[in-house]
């Protein structure tokens, strides 16, 4: 039932959004469309994409006009929303969720003169580019910080769904932690949701009551941060800087900053140099940004900064070989010194040292 009403809501939202966009405007402006899976007010994933959209508006005053449609369910509805944007004169369209992959490709075939950009996907076409962020780089850094800051030797990790992006995040976190403290323990709780503040708070409480004194999360709300603040333990934010919710608790946040990429791509579209490519930006490109390191001693800060610099310059990789899985098997090293992008994008195993079974 809830799915149905979401669909209704999305349809209404889509209709209103596009009707609003239909108002006449100057011909010479480039119309850029954004499709979000969640509400712009989620203070997480969609919120950060919308910040990127605003950065585009600010960067090209008078030259671009942006439209966004929020709360678009992944599936057939998305195709209709994307098509409506293409039909109403949008020349560059960003679709910002994994589940928009097929709908984007389908619409792109029908509108060869419109440029499409799909976030976190892996299928491209002449007029469909893909982009994502190397968030695992940030997770390696916070793993190191966690190992330094945890007194109990146990960290808690609130996860959403066992998809490769989340699994590679847990592994990068653990590898970072082990580089500081080899016998680090981790407790993972899957809340089976990207966004359920109540449940995220409950998971945080469960982890704290079981002795975790540093929390990390791969879910979108600041609920866990707030629980950490209340309980007097430390935590890492996700997607956006959550320091307001945990002034004493937040060590840092892995912030998704889509602004630089969106500006670059809109500029390319304006200049006529846009072409389909795959972009996977990390710390180096400014896609992944670490919020200010706080609530930790200076030596830990210095260590985190040094690691951040090395990851940025490429002197270091979060998945440096040998990477050993839970069974003790060494993973084939396809990238020379480290695992290659394909292995990270399709990661479906836990590294050694995680005492839990990965849900398949």
């Amino acid at each position: 039932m809830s799915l149905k009403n979401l669909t209704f809501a999305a349809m209404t939202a889509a209709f209103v959004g596009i009707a609003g966009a239909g108002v006449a405007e100057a011909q010479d402006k480039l119309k850029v469309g954004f499709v979000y899976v969640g509400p712009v007010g989620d203070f997480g994933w969609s919120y950060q994409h919308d910040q990127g959209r605003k950065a585009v508006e600010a960067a090209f005053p008078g030259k671009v006009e942006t439209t966004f449609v929020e709360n678009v369910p992944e599936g057939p509805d998305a195709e209709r929303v994307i098509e409506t944007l293409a039909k109403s004169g949008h020349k560059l369209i960003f679709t910002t969720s994994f589940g928009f992959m097929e709908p984007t490709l389908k619409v792109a075939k029908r509108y060869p003169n419109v440029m499409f950009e799909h976030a976190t996907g892996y299928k491209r076409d002449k007029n469909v580019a893909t982009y994502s962020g190397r968030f695992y780089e940030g997770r390696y850094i916070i793993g190191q910080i966690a190992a330094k800051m945890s007194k109990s030797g146990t960290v808690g990790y609130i996860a959403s769904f066992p998809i490769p992006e989340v699994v590679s995040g847990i592994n990068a976190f653990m590898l970072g932690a082990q580089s500081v403290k080899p016998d680090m323990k981790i407790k993972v709780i899957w809340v089976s949701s990207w966004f359920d503040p109540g449940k995220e708070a409950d998971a945080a409480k469960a982890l704290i009551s079981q002795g975790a004194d540093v929390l990390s999360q791969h879910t979108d709300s600041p609920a866990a941060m707030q629980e950490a603040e209340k309980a007097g333990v430390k935590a890492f934010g996700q997607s956006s800087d959550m320091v307001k919710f945990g002034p004493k608790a937040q060590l840092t946040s892995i912030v998704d900053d889509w602004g630089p990429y969106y500006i670059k791509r809109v500029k390319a579209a304006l200049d006529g140099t846009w072409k389909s490519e795959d972009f996977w930006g990390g710390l180096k490109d400014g896609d992944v940004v670490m919020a200010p390191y706080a609530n930790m001693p200076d030596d830990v800060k210095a260590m985190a900064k040094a690691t951040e610099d090395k990851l940025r310059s490429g002197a270091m990789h979060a998945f440096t070989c040998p990477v050993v899985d839970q069974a003790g098997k060494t993973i084939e090293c396809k990238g020379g010194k480290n695992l290659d992008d394909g292995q990270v994008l399709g990661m479906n195993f836990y590294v050694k040292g995680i005492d839990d079974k990965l849900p398949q």
Partner: protein
Amino acid sequence: MGLIEAILITVITASTPLLIAAIGELVTERSGVLNLGVEGMMLMGAVTGFVTGYSTGSVVLGAIAGIVAGMAMAALFAFLVLGIVVNQVASGLALTILGIGLSGLIGANYTGLRLEQKPPAIFGALADLPYAGKLLFSHDFFVYAAFALVILVAWFLTRTRAGLTLRAVGESHTSAHALGVPVRRLRLYAILFGGACAGLAGAHLSLAYTPFWVTGMTAGRGWIALAIVVFASWLPWRAMAGAYLFGGVTIAQLQVQGFGLGIPSQLMSSLPYLATIVVLVIISRTRTGSSAPAHLGVPFWPDR
């Protein structure tokens, strides 16, 4: 003691919004009206509660504002289903959609803000009593309000004339109407009560449970409250049992995951729903006939 106490306290927090919303909907349904807009009313209660709490610095005022917002939404619903006799299912769904959109709009400028104030602990020093002091007396007023509501509603529905009349209206509005009972007025009161409870439940989420506002923060709890009413076979005490069963299993599965026993998380996440279904089956086998109010969801035209 430490861990078990922590778990029990979390269970109480997790169950409270479900219980408050369910008890309100139970009264509405007992009067023969099915209001599927609980989720929308909760969201409106949550956003209004947060905005008021944030602006005034008072959690209590926030809770009151949440109640008023829930009632305002319920009043709109009452106008549709009682005034112009629109289909109740459609109106309820529309109310939810309206609540999702409107709450997002109202809360747009309040996203990412933190509420500093904590709800007042009404039993104060009693929480420091040894053994069960913390477990019994450390909660915010929402928790005790939920218990009070269960007791009051149970007493009202079985022990008062007005309560019995309300039930009669739900069982057969034609008979009640023939006897001169003001069917629509009683239903209006029941709908408003349901809205007030949903608003309070939403305010609990944004003021106490996770004190901030984000769009769609109820995350389906309104629908679960509706399910709990059915689960409870429209009896207040069972609604309490249902809310606590659901909350309890939710927390238990999170705890079990934390211990890393290697049970698939997908199975664990579905446990609260499985447990609810199992109990539902057991209850329905031990009783004869349906316990739903006979005129639940049936439209009423007083002049026919």
